[in-house]
């Protein structure tokens, strides 16, 4: 592994120096040669375990990172996390002295793979039209070759939830690993959770909050009725239901409490309503947005409802979040709420570390902030084996040059399912092209 890494950096240096003298075509050719040459090596290495040694390891269930620890990866999984003394024989050793290791970060609410350029509607698969779309599946539009994926990965994010955005019942999110050229490779869960929007903006779409909750109740009531009258429904012998069959079917796992319902709400009173709604239908609830959640922290903790928030949302942006405050995450965490931090973004998913760092700046424990982008999202969505550095977990691992949440720390290695991922992005290619200016002072090339 070390040899390969060195080889790659040498190759990049060579490419950079070529760029100054060689034509573009020659550079492209050199690139192709390098990637072709690297492939067989990578395959050959898969058999041997990889030991990332002597690092500060943000391990499972520990408040403090393990010092001088080693993470061993093999066959796509984490084999062991422990003292550097116990190195498996035959392992390719990556010396991570002075570095730190975390589980790959999980951004629990993104548009990654669903949008390239937000304002170009053709490239944007987030603007669904409709009010009740529970059968919509984000996985069907997921593009594993999106230019955004390597960029998010270069920020230490190895998995994301691709969430639906539009509608009172918005549809089903997908959970994907940020690697693999096909949906078949990348997708971990094609249907992860169902989404409801119950904030002020959505209430405006239907008229009022009352109409919105009535609409949500009607949909769940219809689905519940359908679940016990399937035969009559198929025989066209039931009362008229507000949703089509596939939409009703899509709500059944939610009603059974198997699939979480992620509800976007901000105002404290809307959170109260959402909690009551969740209890009423015995749902597995997750709150999203939740600007005023700190006012309801005890209630949320008692209901064991995880909360997905952006720690930088501290502005009274709308009347349903007049009591937004910057320490929302810290207050919720201190009250025992399971806090999940997210960018709620596509292009900014790579900055999840900065969101977590800001949660720390604003009072959250460092350890809790790291868990809020690893364990907590995995737990909120029941993703066993994700978000943890422990034996048997999926081999999504990031090696950082220092404190993962600090400015200036670089992501040095990213492993997805045990396979090291390239850190090249469309942006590094642009940088390389323009690192030295090959043209004169008049804009000509």
């Amino acid at each position, binding site marked *: 592994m070390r040899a390969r890494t060195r080889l790659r950096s040498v190759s990049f240096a060579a490419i950079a120096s070529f760029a100054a003298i060689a034509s573009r075509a020659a550079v492209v050719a050199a690139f192709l040669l390098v990637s072709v040459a690297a492939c067989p090596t990578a395959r050959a290495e898969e058999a041997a375990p990889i030991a990332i040694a002597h690092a500060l390891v943000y391990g499972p269930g520990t408040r403090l990172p393990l010092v001088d620890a080693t993470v061993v990866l093999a066959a796509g999984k984490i084999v062991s996390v422990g003292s550097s003394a116990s190195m498996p024989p035959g392992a390719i050793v990556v010396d991570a002295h002075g570095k730190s290791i975390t589980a790959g970060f999980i951004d629990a609410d993104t548009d990654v793979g669903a949008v390239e350029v937000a304002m170009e509607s053709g490239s944007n698969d987030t603007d669904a039209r409709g009010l009740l779309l529970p059968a919509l599946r984000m996985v069907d539009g997921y593009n594993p070759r999106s230019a955004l994926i390597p960029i998010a990965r270069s920020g230490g994010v190895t998995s994301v939830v691709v969430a639906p955005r539009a509608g009172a019942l918005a549809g089903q999110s997908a959970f994907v690993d940020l690697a693999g050229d096909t949906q078949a490779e990348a997708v971990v869960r094609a249907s992860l959770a169902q989404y409801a929007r119950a904030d002020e903006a959505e209430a405006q779409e239907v008229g009022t909050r009352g109409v919105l909750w009535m609409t949500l109740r009607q949909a769940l009531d219809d689905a519940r009725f359908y679940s016990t009258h399937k035969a009559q429904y198929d025989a066209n012998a039931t009362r008229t239901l507000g949703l089509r069959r596939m939409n009703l079917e899509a709500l059944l796992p939610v009603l059974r409490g198997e699939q979480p319902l992620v509800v976007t709400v901000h105002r404290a009173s809307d959170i109260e309503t959402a909690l009551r709604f969740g209890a009423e239908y015995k749902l597995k609830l997750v709150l999203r947005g939740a600007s005023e959640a700190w006012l309801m922290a005890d209630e949320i903790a008692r209901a064991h409802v995880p909360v997905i928030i952006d720690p*930088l*949302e501290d502005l009274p942006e709308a009347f349903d979040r007049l*009591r937004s405050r910057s320490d929302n995450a810290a207050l919720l965490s201190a009250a025992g709420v399971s806090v999940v931090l997210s960018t709620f973004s596509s292009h900014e998913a790579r900055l999840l570390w900065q969101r977590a760092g*800001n949660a720390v700046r*604003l009072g959250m424990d460092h350890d809790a902030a790291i868990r809020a982008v690893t364990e907590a999202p995995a737990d909120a969505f029941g993703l066993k084996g994700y978000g943890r550095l422990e034996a048997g977990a999926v081999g999504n691992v990031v090696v950082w040059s220092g404190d993962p949440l600090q400015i200036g720390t*670089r992501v040095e290695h990213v492993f997805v399912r045990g396979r090291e991922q390239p850190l090249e992005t469309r942006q590094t290619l642009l940088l390389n092209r323009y690192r030295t200016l090959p043209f004169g*002072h008049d804009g000509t*090339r």
Partner: protein
Amino acid sequence: MSNRLRTVLPALHAVFRALLPALAAPIVLVLGLPGLAALAAGCDPPRAGSTHARAPAALTTEPDPFAATESRARMPIEAEETRQATAVLVQHATVMTAAGQRYEPGYVLMSGGEIAGVGEGDGPAPPPGTLVVDGHGKFVTPGIVDPHSHMGVSPVPQTLGHDDLNELTDPITAGIRAEHSFWPEDAALERAVAGGVTTIGVLPGSGNLIGGRGVVIHLLPRLGARAMRFPGSPEILKMACGENPKRVYGEKSRAPSTRMGSVRALREAFTKARKYSHDWESWAARKQHPVKTANGSTDEAKPPDRDLALETLALVMRGDILVEWHCYQADDMLAALEVAGEFGFKVRAFHHALEAYKIRDVLVAHGVAIATWDDWWGFKMEAYDGIPENLALMTEAGGRAAVHSDSAVAGQILNQAAGKALAAGRAAGVKLDENDALRWLTANPAWVLGIDDQVGTLQAGKRADVVVWSEDPFSTYARAEQVYIDGRLIFDRGHFGAPWSDFELGVRAMPPLPPPPPLSPAGATP
């Protein structure tokens, strides 16, 4: 790409070669030879002040009531106190001046609203009555200047009632002023100060080709924009190229709906302004040298009708208004420079300028600064090629780069933006130090707004706009602990008073952090 480019390149090359003399001309005009020499020597070109010193020919018969900058309205919070009463000495801190020095430990003495001293060690014996602040472990920097903000004109909460950002009734609204949209109760203002920001450039939105005049706001809580206007700040004009104006007006089936339509509209506007300017000049000349008519009476020439939009553009061509031009793409910036060259005005800064790195040599040659984000990208086509090394590459090329927010959220963590851009640049092998990154936040944006003679560095005689940080400001964990404006402590973390904004009265409780405050009582659910 190569095939298409190969056919296009020679043509482009010829065009740019032909344009080169025209593009270079304004530099010589404005800077003169000493300016060019300074540029060649890698020094700062002359300051904004020199462009204001030109003798104004009569453009109007009456004084512009909005050109004055003296504060008139009362301050609600410290009504009686308008000047710094108590001298303040911050000691034992790491002092970063943004003028090249780092004093460890160092001191800053603020007195009479100005920086009275800065340097190594404990500083002079404080005069009696001086408030001494122990800065052990703290970092001290100049106040952050955010050169591109829409606070006040696009305030929070976002409401129909207070959305006053874009006057989308005509693509050229050069006669309007952001200060007349500015709502001083915007709850974002106080949060920006809590992020170490002391001055902001408030601009109209980018829906119009020429959006109108901006206003430089000194972040003191007052009741109106006039009273918050940064004393002595020059006039600034917001312009926009690229996607926004053509989208806004194209959707209305109006011109411009294309980039070529945008350039035509600009050229026509400046052509009219040139004539307008000429009309006033001939009127002034005739007034000075009246012509006797045939019957022996003097010619009672009436002044031209005043036109606020053309007046603004005429002042731009005269160099009295700084042009702040929203442009993302390299080709759009080159086209903008052509328009500026045709009408003989200078662009002070391209804002957003995500592709500045591609033409940084051109921008440097024209003395144009950029105001940009550290790493926002991709939200529209013209933002697709943004890279995190933009600020660093522009700086390496000898250009002037500033970090801006354009967002009330990003505006609270501008220090982190500079820190990230510094890290990205260093990783790309650009030689940068923390002074460079600090200048992205203070001295350079101050230049962009034409107030660099007053703020932006910790130097004796400048306004005492000072931030005391909990740790290195380029750390994720750094918090502004104290913020001084004109030597007065206006933000002190842990001592939250009533909110600045009347809107937030009764809404917000901000107890110190940590520990967490008592949370809401468990109410009975209905």
